[in-house]
């Protein structure tokens, strides 16, 4: 049963992708419905996989040679992520029916969305490192194609290429890692590696561990690779919700979670992971606080929350990190889709031009507030439970100063969240805008997510069993029923965090009175608006490459004498090298 379900969960969206591409742009309504059909099909089969979690190799496609056999394992970690990918994928597709109405090239749009869903499922279910990398690169391709969907907009094209290049550079880390695993253990199989990782010499294992960390950091837009995610917001909002909040950026966290047992003993690795996570969380939270673009705030917020997940893995609690991933996918997708509804309706992304939207779009306001409360980590929403679990693990296993930083970031999160909600939905409209009503498709996508944000934490127990011994033999995750989890979370450290969050909210409410303090932090504000120098570094790298290339063009002189000279020069140089080298 399981092999068929795996094949279907990948195959159905891919088949849909081919069909939708070939359908072209001739019949818009049909294209929408066909895509919705295929995405729901994938969602159904992925959910059907849930009861069958096991660590046995479920599906094998023999290839042989230096490519190993393409194997798939339907274990808990993989299944839960594929359910997220497929279900949120179908919600995004349903949302797109309204959001992308009347756009051209819909065939290309839906084809890449469906292709992406299949690839993401394949990525998490694969048990062959080469295959994992293959799907990794395919998701990068789809992400690039969808960010630069509006090819006529130079910003979108630039954003797409930037995302492609930065994530691919990180991907080199995964690629080298996969090659090392193959060279030293003779097989690409992940479970085989996790069982035998001690046979790899220490320095090579360290190279492997840090290579994977770089790959994960680039894919999940962590420090120092975080610059691509805000620019990826040029993509249509359903894409931002699906790819850049709920699924693809989670691939990095997935990688770290999957390979944690092998790397946890590598010297300095856990510390590096914690610092990467904490730095990303902090820097992104500050940048979110000063940004005026609604989607950019959410993008920075994603980076920040992913930082929490990465930090959690560094402290050793894979369960907390994955639980937060679960909550985050839900509430962040919710936030992006509602933001998309607002942007689609109002016509601008600039929060300074909004205000009072809540009066025109009350439903959107309420679901956005639900998502915001989950993001800020307020009880009883799912974000609260998962974030507290992470902070608990941090207090227990990580250095105290990092814990304090993460609590501070929790406060910042609350602050920028309430700022966002306030600027958009409350107050008086700050510019002339006309709010279109939103369609039923958007509502149909938003409501389930809002509901899930309220109750998904109740599945904590089931979730821990899913990740437990039966499917992840090397991770040692204990079952944690939700009542026990509630008991664990509702304790003194949580109270401290609640105080910090309340303080942050009060800060916003009394912001007029604190003008002096805010003015004093102007230099930090300036640094944050300039992304703390990372954009400048990116631009410098691009500029250097381009000017080197331009300078090199001189060598192609076009004059025959120089060409022949080149031939003779090489003979002489080679002879010299050989004679000297002997």
């Amino acid at each position, binding site marked *: 049963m399981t092999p068929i379900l795996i094949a279907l969960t990948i195959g159905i969206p891919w088949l849909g992708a081919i069909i939708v591409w070939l359908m072209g742009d001739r019949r818009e309504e049909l294209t929408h419905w066909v895509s919705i059909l295929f995405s729901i099909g994938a969602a159904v089969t992925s959910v059907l996989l849930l009861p069958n979690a096991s660590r046995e190799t479920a599906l094998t496609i023999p*290839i*042989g*040679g*230096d*490519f190993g056999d393409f194997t798939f394992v339907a274990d808990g970690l993989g299944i839960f992520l594929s359910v997220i990918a497929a279900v949120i994928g179908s919600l995004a597709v349903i949302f797109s029916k309204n959001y992308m109405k009347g756009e*051209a*090239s819909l065939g*290309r749009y839906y084809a890449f969305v469906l292709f992406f869903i299949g690839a993401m499922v394949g990525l998490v279910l694969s048990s062959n490192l*080469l295959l994992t990398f*293959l*799907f990794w*690169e*395919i998701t*990068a*391709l789809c992400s*690039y194609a969808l960010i*630069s969907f509006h*090819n*006529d907009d130079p910003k979108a*094209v630039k954003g*797409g*290429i930037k995302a*492609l*290049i930065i994530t*691919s*550079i990180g991907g*080199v880390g995964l*690629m*080298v890692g996969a*090659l*090392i695993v*193959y*060279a030293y253990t003779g097989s690409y199989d992940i479970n085989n590696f996790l069982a035998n990782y001690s046979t790899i010499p220490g320095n090579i294992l360290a190279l492997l561990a840090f290579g994977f960390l770089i790959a994960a950091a680039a894919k999940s837009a962590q420090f120092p690779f975080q610059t691509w995610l805000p620019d990826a917001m040029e993509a249509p909002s359903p894409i931002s919700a699906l790819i850049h909040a709920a699924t693809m950026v989670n691939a990095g966290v997935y990688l770290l979670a999957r390979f944690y047992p092998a790397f946890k003993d590598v010297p300095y690795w856990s510390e590096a992971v914690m610092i990467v996570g904490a730095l990303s969380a902090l820097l992104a939270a500050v940048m979110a606080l000063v940004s005026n673009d609604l989607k950019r705030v959410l993008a920075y917020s994603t980076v920040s929350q992913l930082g929490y997940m990465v930090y959690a893995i560094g402290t050793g609690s894979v369960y907390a990190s994955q639980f937060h991933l679960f909550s985050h996918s839900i509430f962040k997708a919710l936030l992006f889709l509602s933001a998309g509804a607002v942007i689609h309706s109002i016509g601008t992304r600039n929060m300074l031009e909004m205000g009072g939207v809540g009066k025109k779009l009350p439903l959107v306001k309420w679901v956005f507030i639900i998502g915001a409360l989950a993001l800020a980590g307020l009880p009883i929403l799912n974000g609260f439970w998962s974030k507290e679990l992470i902070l608990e693990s941090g207090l227990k296993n990580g250095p105290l100063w990092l814990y304090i930083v993460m609590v501070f970031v929790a406060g910042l999160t609350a602050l920028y969240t309430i700022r966002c909600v306030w600027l958009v939905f409350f107050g008086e409209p700050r510019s002339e805008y006309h709010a279109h009503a939103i369609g039923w498709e958007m509502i149909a996508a938003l409501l389930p997510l809002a509901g899930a944000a309220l109750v998904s934490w109740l599945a904590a127990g089931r979730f821990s069993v899913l990740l437990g011994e039966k499917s992840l033999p090397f991770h040692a995750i204990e079952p944690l029923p939700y009542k026990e989890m509630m008991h664990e979370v509702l304790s003194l450290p949580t109270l401290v965090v609640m105080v910090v969050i309340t303080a942050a909210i009060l800060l916003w409410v009394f912001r007029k009175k604190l003008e002096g303090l805010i003015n004093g932090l102007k230099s930090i504000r300036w640094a944050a608006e300039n992304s703390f120098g990372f954009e400048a570094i990116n631009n410098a790298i691009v500029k250097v*490459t*381009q000017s*080197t*290339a*331009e300078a*090199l*063009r001189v*060598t*192609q*002189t*076009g004059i*025959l004498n*120089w*060409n*022949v000279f*080149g*031939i003779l*020069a*090489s*003979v002489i140089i*080679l*002879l010299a*090298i*050989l*004679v000297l*080298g*002997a």
Partner: protein
Amino acid sequence: MTSNFLFSSLLLLPFLAAPIVYMLGRLTARNGNVLGISLTRALTVFFLLVEGCLLYLVVKQALSSGGAYLLIGDEPLVFDGIGLILACVVLFLGLMVTLFSIDYMNNEKGEEKFYALLLTTIGSIIGLGMSYDLFNLWLWFEAMAISTYLLVAFYNDEPPSLEAGVKYLVQSAVGSALVMFGIAMIFSQTGSITLTDLWQLTSSEAPLAKIAGVLLIVGFGVKTALVPLHTWLPDAHSQAPSGISAMLSGVVIEAGLVAMLRAISMFGKVDFNWGAILIGFGCLNILIGNLMALRQTQVKRLLAYSSLAHVGYMLLGFGFSMAFGRFEGAAGGFFHLLTHSMMKGLAFLAAGALLFTLHLSKQEHVPLTLDDLNGASRKYPVAAFALGLAVLGLGGIPPMAGFMSKWQILVAGVKAENTLMLIVVIFAALNSILSLGYYAPLVNRMYRHEPSTAVEQGSKMPGLIIVPLVILSIAIVVIGVWPSSVQFLTEQAGLSLLYTFFY
């Protein structure tokens, strides 16, 4: 049929077919005589298909009888894995190019010359793969070179084509002369030029052998477009008719590489240095190829520079196999030869299709620029998709075949378990990403909604041109998801190569 007969006809058929095709074309060349030229084209396709059948029969015979070889006087010709893969690649690509050129070269002056020369090129490349003797190698190599000189300068009314042809001729001839000196030196030292004899004899490090080796590498290297011997390449590949550009980038350069490998095979056991030279050239090619392509504005020139980079990957693979004895390097190098010929062939054919509809069909001999590609996908969806697929495949993105072939080469590098080689592997991977920096914007341009003026005024895409584009696209994706489908070819070739190095 005896194996000797099959083998000899495999080698001779193109050279018999070429004058027949040419005569037929010439004799029926009257204005508006469509039948004559159609017959010529059909005959070319027919001969290529027959050649393919002969190849298949020879392979079957070889497998059953344990090897196919032929002795013409003292010249040995052996049908091994390297010859097989080269013959398969050249026949497949040649067939695609012929189908493509039926519409592309329609009504060009001297069209029958084109097909005849194409046949001789194909024939000489097949022969090149079979030769086991240095001088024989040089001879087939020279035949291939002469055929391509005429093909590059095909548009002999256009000064840029002539210029490209002359530069190509002079540099290639210099290379050939250097090869001759190298062969003469080896001959003077050892008294023999058959490879099997040379493998036995050259275990003593005669100083002249080193000089001969360098001359051979540089001499064949001109044709293989090693940097800094590559300066003829951008001009020749961009000025030739698009089908020939595809052949040049796809097989001719690789044939030069195979010739070079055969020639220096005797040095395989002697020294580590020779494999290192290949790896060094490989890295240089990859870097320079990608950097130079980054700033190009003409499509065909951009693709030509990217060929430099891909030859670099092949050199890396072969260098790994020569320096460290890694089988994956040899198999990977040949795999990349196969996939690159298909992807670069598809890229040039798709770009050629667009060049044809946008410019050539209106008799304007201007190069296709990147700006011309804006919005091409709406009017020419198949060509745009094919070009996008080929170009992203060249950048190493799955599920196209380039990903798998690059992977196999990098496996060889890591398995060598050498820190320097690990750095080379990372360098090669990063360069792959650098190449995306000029491939991705190209694809983005094609999928704009706002068409360029050229696209708006472009004519209709002829039907037959699309057929090879579709066939190649499907082949690339199939090999990309199922790499073992061609492993029988590449592994055979890899084994043969290691045999020649470490006999």
